[in-house]
């Protein structure tokens, strides 16, 4: 049966979390069933307080072939990391 059902990606926001995180996927016939399946498969141990599901086919992914062009240029620009600043003693919560 599940081969006939499209795949949905599941995102959960944990009780203490601010953002939804990808946790896996489920097969489902439609959005309502996808939420129920996500609840039944991924929230059995109180993993979260909010669920998102999205059709896997609707996700636009970067092309692995282009990984070099997309991500390599950032490699030698370490100055973008905020590690070159001396932090004053008085600042406690940075």
């Amino acid at each position, binding site marked *: *049966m*599940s081969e006939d*059902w499209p795949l949905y990606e599941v995102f959960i926001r944990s009780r203490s979390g601010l953002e939804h995180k990808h946790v896996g996927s*489920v*097969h*489902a*016939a439609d959005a*309502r*069933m996808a939420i*129920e*399946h996500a609840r*039944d*498969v991924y929230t*059995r141990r109180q993993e979260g307080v909010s669920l998102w599901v999205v059709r896997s086919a609707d996700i636009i992914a970067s092309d692995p072939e282009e990984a070099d062009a997309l991500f390599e240029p950032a490699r030698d620009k370490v100055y973008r990391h905020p590690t070159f600043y001396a932090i004053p003693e008085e600042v406690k919560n940075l």
Partner: protein
Amino acid sequence: MSARAHAPSERDPAQQAAHFRHVLRLADTSLVLGQRLGEWVGHAPALEEDLGLANLALDLIGQARLLLTYAGELEGRGRDEDALAFLRDAPEFVNLTLAEQPNGDFGHTIVRQWLIDAWQLEIYQGLLGSADSRLGAIAAKALKETRYHHRFSSGWLIRLGDGTRESHDRVQAALDCLWRFSAELFCADEVDERMQAAAIAPALAELAPRWSARIDEDLAAATLTRPAAQPYPWHGRRGVHTEHLGHMLAEMQHLQRTYPGVRW
């Protein structure tokens, strides 16, 4: 905490016996239905449904544990949840006859589940204001679970009923087959009347129309036909069961019966 603290008016042994029986009936329906759903594990049509049915089963067995423990205290003979679940024979079980019916196909399981979910919704809702505060607290916990159960079962009822020709015909056949057990759901006897008089349980006659309206609403969405009302020949709540319960208990109780007192 003693049971008496929750039900201070029970000096009368007949009233205490009725109270025990009332809680035991709720417990047994959840236990038997939970055990039936557990039989699906590893056999459901999809991995996600396998887990879904197991989740329902665990909710129901959780309800049964709370209710059986309480029933054992009300009875006052030292029987705990395990003694009540594993060391009683079929005639001592007082679940709804509907709950013990075999799983059949997936549609059959869904119809059985949906009829009982709609019943438990009304029962637990009605128990929220019970004079028995412990029973009310158990009902409040169970009600949240039952709302999800009904969402699950009515969702599938509508998908199957309003699905393909075959799924519609199968789920209608399941409904026609199981409907004869529905007359028992709101059929009050002396136990129910005593509980109602003591404000421990709601009046079944007042719950029935609400159950019926919910059933009609779901059936309309599922394009299914409500079968004609049938006479009431079933008495699971009084310990008179169909042949199926004994077979189910033989499997459920096998380990405790073979190795009495064995622990995990």
